[in-house]
């Protein structure tokens, strides 16, 4: 411990002995770290957008259903609570937003085409913070209230059905008695989504209108809850679970959309692999730099050992030198990443490849997202693996025999 100041002094000065080599290595570490964080930010941005879009389309952060609804999302599997009971349990519970819905499979027909869709009976006021699209951005208009008699469909679905605003379509589903429940609606609005598949899949009508059409009183099939952060949903999950019993099931968004949940975990793994792979490339340069530095200083190391410095201190000196080099490179890389990602957080237009991205549920705008946790991950991985990679040359230096090292030509 008492040697720490002199070890730092030696390490720091030795680092700048061959400043050209050090600067090149710093550049390599800096660019490598920047690449780690920048790519991670792009990946995170893409995944975030996908998750947020998907959560906005249906799942929210937590959902409540009839226990059989996941396997059979039909009108038979309704939540056994009346609207008043839902209000009593969840109103004022501190959720960012929550809403009850009617969600059933249905067929929509124009005079030319028919398509299977998911019919959503919603209360537009309650869903304002949950919905993935801006009500004001809807062509025509959005639903005004739960009793609105119109229907809002996606632009792509309108195109497929060869219909449009002001035209009539027919919705057909089943009521609880397995009888056909159908009704004509006038198209009042067309919404745009990040992906065409979403625009083609969901049709919105007023919740009360849907309940009337399906003959289910004021019952619903789904209650959706939104917390503050989709990555931290346990609080929301527990808050919902604590006020219901086994007559309903409460699910987290990644349990509902398992594909998305799995994808997010895969992306997390990918980020770690990416960081490690870049470091592997960097480590060759790092180890080479240290090996060269040790080779150039064999006699000095021998001298220090001869004068009574312990091998452990030599090991420490080389490791400190390596850590200083990496710390400087990390500082440069993190600063560069911050400077390049932050200006891009307003979005990068990737519409050229957006067609291909759509199959992943991604939009044509990419919003890089710089998380402190990712910067810490890159920094931690570089320092940890850098330390391990430096052990071999440092160990080698500490094992020199002073009498041989000091006479090394």
């Amino acid at each position, binding site marked *: 411990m*008492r*040697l720490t*100041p*002199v070890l730092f*002094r*030696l390490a720091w*000065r*030795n680092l700048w*002995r061959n400043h050209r080599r050090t600067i090149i290595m710093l550049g390599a570490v800096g660019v490598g770290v920047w690449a780690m964080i920048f790519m991670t930010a792009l990946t995170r941005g893409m995944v975030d957008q996908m998750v947020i879009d998907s959560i906005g389309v249906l799942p929210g952060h937590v959902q409540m259903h009839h226990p059989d609804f996941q396997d059979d999302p039909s009108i038979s599997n309704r939540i056994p609570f009346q609207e008043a009971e839902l209000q009593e349990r969840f109103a004022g519970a501190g959720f960012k937003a929550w809403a009850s819905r009617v969600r059933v499979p249905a067929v929509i027909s124009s005079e030319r085409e028919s398509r299977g869709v998911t019919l959503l009976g919603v209360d537009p006021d309650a869903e304002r913070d949950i919905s993935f699209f801006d009500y004001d951005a809807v062509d025509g208009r959005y639903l005004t209230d739960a009793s609105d008699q119109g229907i809002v469909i996606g632009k792509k679905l309108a195109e497929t059905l060869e219909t449009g605003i002001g035209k009539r379509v027919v919705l057909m589903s089943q009521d609880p008695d397995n009888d056909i429940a159908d009704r004509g609606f006038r198209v009042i609005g067309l919404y745009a989504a990040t992906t065409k598949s979403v625009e083609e899949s969901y049709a919105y009508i007023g919740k009360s209108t849907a309940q009337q059409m399906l003959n289910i009183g004021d019952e619903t099939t789904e209650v959706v809850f939104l917390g503050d952060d989709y990555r931290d949903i346990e609080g929301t999950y527990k808050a919902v679970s604590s006020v219901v019993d086994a007559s309903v099931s409460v699910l987290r968004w990644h349990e509902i959309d398992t594909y998305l949940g799995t994808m997010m975990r895969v992306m997390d793994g990918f980020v770690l692999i990416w960081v490690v792979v870049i470091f592997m490339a960097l480590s060759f340069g790092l180890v080479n730099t240290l090996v060269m530095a040790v080779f150039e200083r064999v*006699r*000095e190391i021998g*001298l*220090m*050992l*001869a*004068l*009574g*410095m*312990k*091998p452990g*201190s030599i090991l420490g000196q080389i490791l400190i030198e390596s850590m200083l080099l990496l710390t400087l490179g990390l500082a440069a890389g993190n600063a560069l990443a911050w400077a390049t990602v932050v200006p891009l957080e307003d979005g990068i237009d990737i519409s050229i490849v957006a067609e291909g991205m759509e199959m992943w549920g991604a939009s044509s705008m990419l919003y890089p997202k710089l998380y402190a946790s990712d910067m810490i991950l890159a920094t931690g991985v570089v320092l940890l693996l850098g330390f391990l990679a430096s052990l071999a040359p440092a160990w080698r230096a500490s094992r020199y*025999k*002073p*009498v041989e090292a*000091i006479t090394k030509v």
Partner: protein
Amino acid sequence: MSAVRCIDLCKTYRQGEQDIKALDHVSIEIARGEFVCLSAPSGGGKTTLLNAIGGLDIPDSGEVYIDGKRIDQLSKGELADVRLHQIGFVFQAYNLIPVLTAQENVEFVMQVQGVPATERVTKSRAILKEVGLEGLEDRRPAQMSGGQQQRVAVARAIASRPALVLADEPTANLDSKSADELMALFTELNEHHKTTFVIATHDQRVMSYAGRLIRMLDGRIVDDINQRA
């Protein structure tokens, strides 16, 4: 008690197919405060003997005692401690740490010993003044002449007042004036501080400063002369 005592030291190096006997049953005893020169032609065994005394090299057989303590059986760490606290070294070349200034080089051993900073600074400045390098404290080795560098090395060797200073060909890279100045410094330190000096050399002028001259040939002591007598 002797400063140095070696009993029946043997050391053999393998060079290609040949075994070279660097030390062949060498026994010597050096009293405290002696000024001894080890003289031998190249390959005669003087550096090997010096390294054995300094704990830098372990003999194949025999015993080495420094201040009455046997050191040839110590571990690497224990040997490092002996070198750090009991022995000062001056080598032929590459004596200094290039990235440290003259003063920092002198302080180095004291710093490893754990001497407090203020005491280190005071001592190192005083010793640099003693060896005639006042004003050069902040120079790095590359900014000093060979003679000045050797003086810094001597200052470092004596900074913590070791009982024994070992010097291996300390004048080999110096011009005659610098060599004479260095030897005068050694003599002065030996006389004033009673530091024991053991110097390996084949320089006749260096030998003339020694009180005792031990001649070696082919790893054996062939002559042991008290030059003061």
